[in-house]
C-alpha cells in the first residue's frame, strides 16, 4: 500500500501537468530515499506534488526533521531525487539549473570571504558572460536594492550578520533567476534584523516580480511572507496541506501581525504542524 499510493499520485500528477508557462516550478511526485551502503535506508521524502506559479511567493514549513533541507537541495539540483521530477520552466532539473539562485541559511559560509562584496556578487555574472560595464551596473543596482551601496568594497566578514545575508540576497537578485530559493535564510539573525529582512524579501519580490520559494521552520514568518504556505508532514515527508494566505498584499510587521485573519491562519498552520509532529498524516497516507 505504502508503495502503490505514491506511484498512483505521481501518475496523476504527470497526466495533470499543465503546459502553460505560468508555472515556474513544478514538483511531480518527488521522493528521496537516502541509500548509503552499510546503513539503513532513510526515506526522507515520500511524495511531494506542488507547483509554484510565476511571480508567486510560496513558503514551505514543516516540523523539524521534515526533510526541508533535503527538499530544497533537490529543487536546487544539488541532490538527485530518487523518484519523480522537479521541473523548472518546463525542463526537468538534473543539476543546478540556469534560472535558479539559492540563498543559504549560513550566510557567513555562503559568501566567499576572500572576495569583496562586489566581487561576490559579480562572480556569477562573470560566469554568465555579461560584459564588464553591465556587470558593474547590475552589481550597483542589486546593492542599492538591499541598501548596501556603501559596503561594496568591504569584505563580507567586516559586515554584521544581517548585512551579510543582504549581500547573499543581492547576489541572488543580480543573477536574475526565474526562481529564488531561500533556505531558512533568517534563522541565524536576531529578531529585529529578521523583521527587516522579511520586509526586504517582500518588497524585492514585489518590485522585481521574481518567483520565491521560501523554506522556514518559523510559522509566523511563513504566514507573514507567503501567498501560500505549504505544510509538510514529518518523515517520510508528504504534503499536509497547501494553505492559501488570503491576507492583503500590503503587509506590515505591526498591522498584518495583529490582523485577526493572520491569527487564524497562523493558528491553522500551527495546528497542522502539531499534528504533523504527532505523526498524523493526510488521508490515504501511512507512516
Amino acid at each position, binding site marked *: 500500500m505504502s508503495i502503490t499510493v505514491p506511484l498512483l499520485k505521481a501518475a496523476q500528477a504527470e497526466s495533470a501537468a499543465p503546459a502553460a508557462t505560468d508555472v515556474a516550478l513544478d514538483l511531480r511526485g518527488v521522493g528521496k530515499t537516502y541509500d548509503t551502503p552499510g546503513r539503513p535506508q532513510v526515506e526522507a521524502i515520500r511524495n511531494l506534488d506542488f507547483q509554484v506559479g510565476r511571480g508567486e511567493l510560496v513558503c514551505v514549513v514543516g516540523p523539524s526533521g521534515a526533510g526541508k533541507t533535503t527538499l530544497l*537541495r533537490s529543487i*536546487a*539540483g*544539488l541532490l538527485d531525487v530518487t523518484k519523480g521530477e522537479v521541473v523548472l520552466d518546463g525542463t526537468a532539473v538534473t*543539476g*543546478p539549473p*540556469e534560472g*535558479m*539562485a*539559492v540563498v*543559504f541559511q*549560513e550566510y557567513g*559560509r*555562503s559568501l*566567499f*570571504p*576572500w*572576495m569583496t562584496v562586489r566581487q561576490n556578487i559579480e*562572480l*556569477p555574472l*562573470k*560566469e554568465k558572460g555579461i560584459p564588464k560595464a553591465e556587470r558593474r551596473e547590475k552589481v550597483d543596482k542589486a546593492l542599492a536594492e538591499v541598501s548596501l551601496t556603501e559596503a561594496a568594497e568591504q*569584505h563580507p*566578514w*567586516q559586515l554584521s550578520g544581517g548585512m551579510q545575508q543582504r549581500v547573499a540576497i543581492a547576489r541572488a537578485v543580480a*543573477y536574475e533567476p526565474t526562481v529564488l530559493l531561500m533556505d531558512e535564510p533568517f534563522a541565524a539573525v536576531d529578531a529585529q534584523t529578521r523583521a527587516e529582512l522579511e520586509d526586504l524579501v517582500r518588497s524585492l519580490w514585489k518590485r522585481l516580480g521574481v518567483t520565491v520559494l521560501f523554506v522556514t521552520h518559523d510559522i509566523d514568518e511563513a504566514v507573514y511572507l507567503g501567498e501560500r504556505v505549504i505544510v509538510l508532514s514529518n518523515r517520510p515527508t508528504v504534503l499536509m496541506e497547501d494553505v492559501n494566505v488570503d491576507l492583503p498584499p500590503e503587509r506590515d510587521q505591526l498591522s498584518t501581525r495583529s490582523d485577526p485573519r493572520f491569527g487564524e491562519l497562523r493558528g491553522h498552520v500551527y495546528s497542522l504542524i502539531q499534528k504533523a509532529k504527532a505523526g498524523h498524516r493526510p488521508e490515504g497516507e501511512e507512516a
Partner: protein
Amino acid sequence: MTATTYAKKAFLALGLPLILLAAWWIASAGSTNPFWPSLQTILQTFPETWTPERLAADLVPSLARLGIGFSLAVVGGIVGGTAIGLSPTLRALSEPVLEFFRAVPPPVLVPIIALFAGYTGWLGKIVTIALGCLWPILLNTVEGVRGLEPTLTDTAKSYRLSWWRRLLFVVLPGASPRIFTGARQALSIGVILMVISELFGANRGLGASIVQFQRSFAIPQMWTGIILLGLIGVLLAAIFKVVETRMLAWYMGQRQIERGE
C-alpha cells in the same frame, strides 16, 4: 601604529638576539681555543671572507637552487594536492604512499638521488630540495581542499561556476591558508636540504664552503658561514611573512573578527 608600538615591536624582535650576541661575545672574549674563536674575531673575519665575489660564487647558486627547488615543490604540491583533495578515488589510491613518503626523512634521499641525477651538477641538488619541500605542501593542500566549507561548494555549484572558475576563485583561495602552512614548513626544510645537498659532492655553495673551511682549519671563516646561514633563514622568513600577510589578509582579518579581537 604609533611610534611607541613600533619601538616596542622592535625591542621585542631584537631584544633576545642582542642578549644572546652579548653573552656569546663575553663568553668567547679572549678565547685561545682554535675551534672556539672569539666572536670579535669571527665578526672581523666576516667582511673579508664574504666578499662580493664569494657571495656571487657561493651564496647566489645556493639560493638559486633553493628558489628553483622550492618553486617546483610549490607548483607540484598545489597541483597534486588539489587533484588528490578533489578526487576521493585518487585519495584512496595515494593515501598509503603519501604516508610512506612523509615518514622518510628527506636527507636520506640525498644518496639515492646522487645515484640517479649525479651530485656535481645542479640537478641532483634541485631534485633533493624539491622532493623534500613537496610533501608538506602536498599534504597541507589536500587537507585544505578537503576542508573547504560545503556551503561555499554548494554556492559555487548552484551558480553553475565552470570548473576552472571554481578552482581559481573557490577551491584554491579556500585552501590557501593551509597551503601557506605547508609552504612555511617546506621553506625551512628547503634551507636544510640546500646545505645538506652541498655537503656531499659540491665545490661551490654555502654548505660546501662551510665544509671546506672546516677541513682547511679556517675555523673563524666556518663560523661566519654558519652566521650567514642563520641570517638567510631570518631573511627568508621575513619575505615569506610579507607575502603571506598580503595574500592571506582576508583570512587574518576574518579570524581576528571571529575571535573578537
